[in-house]
């Protein structure tokens, strides 16, 4: 018998609200299955289970908010004698949160190599689950609307904000009269709080150093354009995927930038799980992981990126993606700023940033020519590495981007 606990999905998560179970007592589960949805400060996350077996009992019911570490369910190992699946729905509730996790203190016994849980299979098991955008879920909560009966008109039948508003308008009672603003205490405000807590800790504890290097992108973008010209539209690549791939590959030689600072020491990670910053419409951001980004070919990475961004915005991020990040990459896109001076997400060691790609007069050989360039930046933890190492990393990144065909 083992215990399935409320996972920690990020440095500053203290508690989560169980929204929905996809399994019940007596059901068989396999490693990697998505078994529940938990609402966190960063939205609703699908929770995977990391062992196979049979659900013996569910201890925390929908709607209950419990601290990280609370036992949510008990799992019997496969082959264990089937105890008369005591339909005795454990008096659930008040799961004794005996071991409330030490707040804001990293795990005491961090193994030397922080090997995050084995990534789950790429696709969740099929099942008719409620698809709902975070904004819609939030609004429904504000309105006190039951989402189960609402027909979704979004992609894949997802319930959108408009569906919620429509349902609220047609619903009787005072629900529709609730103002749309997000006052303190709403999920929107709580995401702000989660970001505030993580970033305050970063600036309080991490002695950042910042470096940047302007990278000539003509070779990379020229290669990308030639590649895309030969491809059907659905298989085209975007520059962000190329940048992500280059960062992941470059990091292989820089373990002092990929991993964590825990208990007074740098702990290089065994994998390169890149947290990719996705800004959410309506405010806030999440940086879920692209698992093993350095081993995925560009094509696979592009597909993973599309899928991740879509789920970050529409709902459906998984617990493994919210807890495995070993480094963060943020790309502000074509319309934003020239450069990023990043804040590291603790306890990670570094953040790599990209500003917008822009045409600039550039010295090429003896001449000045218009070239498209991007400013790549590194914010790194000075306890774990020095500027010299950081500079070498940016140089390695530059070199990779001059040979895009090798990426």
């Amino acid at each position, binding site marked *: 018998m083992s215990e399935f606990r409320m996972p920690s999905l990020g440095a500053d998560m203290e508690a989560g609200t169980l929204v929905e179970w996809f399994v019940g007592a007596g059901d068989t589960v396999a490693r990697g299955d998505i078994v529940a949805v938990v609402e966190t400060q960063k939205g609703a996350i699908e929770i995977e289970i990391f062992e196979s077996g049979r659900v013996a009992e569910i201890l925390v019911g929908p709607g209950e908010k419990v601290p990280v570490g609370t036992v949510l369910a008990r799992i019997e190992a496969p082959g264990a004698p089937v105890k008369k699946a005591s339909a005795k729905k454990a008096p659930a509730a008040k799961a004794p949160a005996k071991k409330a996790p030490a707040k804001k203190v990293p795990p005491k016994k961090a193994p030397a190599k922080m090997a995050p849980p084995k990534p789950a299979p790429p696709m969740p098991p099929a099942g008719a689950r409620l698809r709902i955008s975070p904004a819609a879920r939030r609004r429904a909560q504000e309105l006190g609307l039951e989402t189960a009966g609402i027909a979704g008109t979004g992609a894949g039948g997802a319930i959108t904000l408009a569906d919620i508003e429509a349902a609220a308008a047609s619903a009787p009672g005072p629900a529709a009269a609730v103002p749309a603003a997000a006052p303190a205490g709403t999920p929107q405000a709580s995401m702000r709080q989660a970001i505030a807590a993580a970033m305050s800790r970063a600036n309080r504890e991490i002695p950042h150093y910042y470096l940047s290097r302007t990278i000539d992108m003509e070779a990379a973008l020229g290669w990308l354009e030639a590649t895309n010209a030969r491809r059907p539209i659905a298989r085209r690549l975007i520059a962000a995927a190329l940048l992500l791939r280059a960062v992941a590959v470059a990091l292989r030689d820089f373990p002092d930038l990929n991993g964590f600072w825990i208990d007074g020491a740098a702990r290089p990670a065994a994998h390169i799980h890149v947290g990719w910053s996705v800004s959410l*419409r309506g405010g806030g951001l999440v940086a879920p992981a692209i698992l093993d980004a350095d081993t995925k070919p560009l094509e696979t990475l592009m597909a993973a990126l599309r899928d991740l961004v879509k789920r970050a915005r529409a709902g459906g991020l998984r617990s493994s993606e919210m807890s495995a990040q070993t480094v963060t990459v943020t790309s502000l896109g074509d319309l934003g700023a020239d450069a990023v001076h990043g804040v590291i997400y603790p306890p990670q060691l570094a953040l790599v940033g990209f500003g917008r790609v822009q045409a600039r007069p550039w010295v090429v050989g003896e001449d000045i020519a218009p070239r498209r360039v991007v400013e790549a930046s590194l914010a790194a933890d000075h306890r774990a590495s020095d500027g010299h190492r950081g500079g070498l990393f940016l140089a390695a990144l530059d070199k990779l981007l001059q040979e895009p065909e090798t990426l």
Partner: protein
Amino acid sequence: MTDDDLAALILARIADIAPEADTADADPAMDLRDQFDLDSMDFLNFAIALHEALGVEIPETDYPRIRTLDACVAYLRGKGVA
């Protein structure tokens, strides 16, 4: 399909990608990316959605020609969308 119908179809694709966008008040001459906060991934998804809805091939080099609502309508007409 009238120009208005085509514009409505285009805005419906935007609304799928950016559900929070207020497409009812779209400025037909303004860059869709600025107007609805679309990044390069969103814009690629927009082009894919137009392709799927209308069967039009949109090479990457033509992306600048579909960046406003008016330009997009004109471009799709030029591609034979009736």
